[in-house]
């Protein structure tokens, strides 16, 4: 059970503001989706949480302790980064051995069972792994870490659909037995959506949204039909996306709605469909 608190964190790279006064809390035993476009600040935020970078302002606390240069706080986190951190000549099995050396909670047996499920040859060197298998290797190290906080930065990079499915299945199975704080930063939102409980959307270094997935999805819906009628219905509402094809129009609305809204939509002869997380994400980012 570990909580991560991010308090007013800012980070600049030269004149680029990567993070602007970001405040967030990752509660214990929940799965978070950290979403945002390229350059939104997801990796920078993860790097600050994991002490790989320093914030220019603000602080990160792990269970109330500062995360910066704090071995005790950092010993609670396992992070899968997008880039390789292992020496290229290291063998997969040695990667497991060293993970066990540095982290006594590392579950070697589970790591080998995952390697078997993903058909990962543990005698290969990291240099000889394909990008997909390289991701599998890093995923296994993180999943088997046994630590209370696990962070994945683009976990499914290079993985085919079957392995992506297997990953999320394994994550759910492991999480149900060993609840922990999980943060997943990804672009492939629809696939991750089924495991996410909370969603945090970053845009240009700022938190655009931080809510439970259920509440976000409940608030978002698409209305489609005749363009003028769609306009009549959506007038005064929080439209985050509009698409028009001839007289046909689809508008995505992000606003709490009730039975009276549904009745009005029926009355106007329009169709209502729930918005998917991916669609909502794109709409929010573009709006």
């Amino acid at each position, binding site marked *: 059970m570990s909580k991560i608190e991010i308090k007013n964190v800012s980070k600049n790279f030269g004149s680029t503001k990567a993070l602007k006064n970001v405040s967030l809390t990752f509660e214990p035993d929940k799965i978070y989706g950290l979403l945002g476009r390229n350059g939104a600040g997801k990796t920078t935020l993860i790097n600050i949480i994991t002490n790989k970078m320093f914030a220019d302002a603000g602080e990160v606390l792990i269970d109330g302790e500062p995360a910066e240069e704090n071995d005790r706080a950092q010993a609670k986190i396992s992070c899968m980064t997008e880039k390789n951190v292992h*020496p290229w000549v290291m063998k997969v099995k040695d990667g497991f051995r060293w993970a066990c050396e540095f982290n006594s909670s590392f579950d070697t047996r589970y790591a080998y069972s995952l390697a078997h499920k993903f058909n990962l040859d543990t005698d290969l060197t990291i240099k000889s792994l394909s990008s997909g298998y390289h991701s599998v290797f890093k995923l296994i190290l993180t999943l088997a870490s046994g630590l209370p906080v696990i962070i994945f930065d683009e976990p499914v990079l290079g993985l085919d659909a079957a392995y992506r499915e297997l990953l999320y299945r394994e994550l759910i199975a492991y999480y149900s037995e060993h609840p922990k704080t999980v943060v997943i930063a990804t672009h492939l939102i629809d696939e991750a959506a089924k495991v996410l409980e909370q969603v945090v959307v970053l845009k240009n270094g700022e938190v655009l949204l931080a809510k439970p997935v259920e509440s976000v999805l409940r608030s978002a819906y698409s209305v489609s039909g005749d363009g003028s009628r769609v306009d009549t219905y959506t007038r005064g509402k929080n439209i985050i996306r509009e698409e028009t094809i001839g007289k046909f129009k689809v508008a995505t609305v992000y606003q709490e709605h009730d039975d009276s809204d549904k009745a009005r939509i029926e009355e106007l002869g329009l169709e209502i469909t729930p918005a998917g997380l991916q669609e909502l994400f794109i709409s929010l980012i573009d709006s």
Partner: protein
Amino acid sequence: MGNILKVAKFNFITLFNRQILICSAILLLHLLISAAVIRLANTEGPAGSNDVIVMCFALIMGLVYFPLSFKYILSQGISRKRFFLAMCLSFTFLAAIFALLSAIFYVINLKIANVWMVYETAYGDRSIPGMVVWVFSVSLFLGVLGWFIRLIYYVSGRNMQIFIAVAPFILAPVLLFLNILADGTIFSATGRFLGKVIGYSTTNPNPYIGVASMVAAAVILSGLVFLLLRRAQIKDQ
């Protein structure tokens, strides 16, 4: 302390091991070449130097291994302070291994070829303990120097990196020019200073002055390394 030893162990088993083996192979090759040259040329020698080989390796390993180790160790949740201490310990062990390797090959070499050592030439001393301690101190200094140079390069921006790469080629002729203008006093004063610092003198050479200076220089450099390292951030993430 546990994590510091683990990091040192990681450095040796995954990063340094290959280079130590390559260095040993080169020392062996050097021994064979020395023997062959002396036999074939029908001369008594002298043949090249072991200590120069290990010194080169110490500098190169200092230059090469910092980013590899830094990236991995930080990802294991270990702080920069502990990483620094572990690297200091690693370079100390590495220097000791190089000193022993150099001495072992020196002893073997003496039986085969009339080997030439920097230590022997500089101090006129053939004692093995003295040579081991001296090679250790020089290897330690060069390892930390390599680490320091690489770290400056690592924490610098692109323009600074270009400047660091080009600076020696600009400074060398400028220094030469200034020395000519000053009637050679710059180089002769530098030579006198270095002679004192490394304990070299024509009348009474003392390798232990050199050992003390090299260790002191390594300690001062490692202090500077720590100042740079404590705010160093992972790159290429």
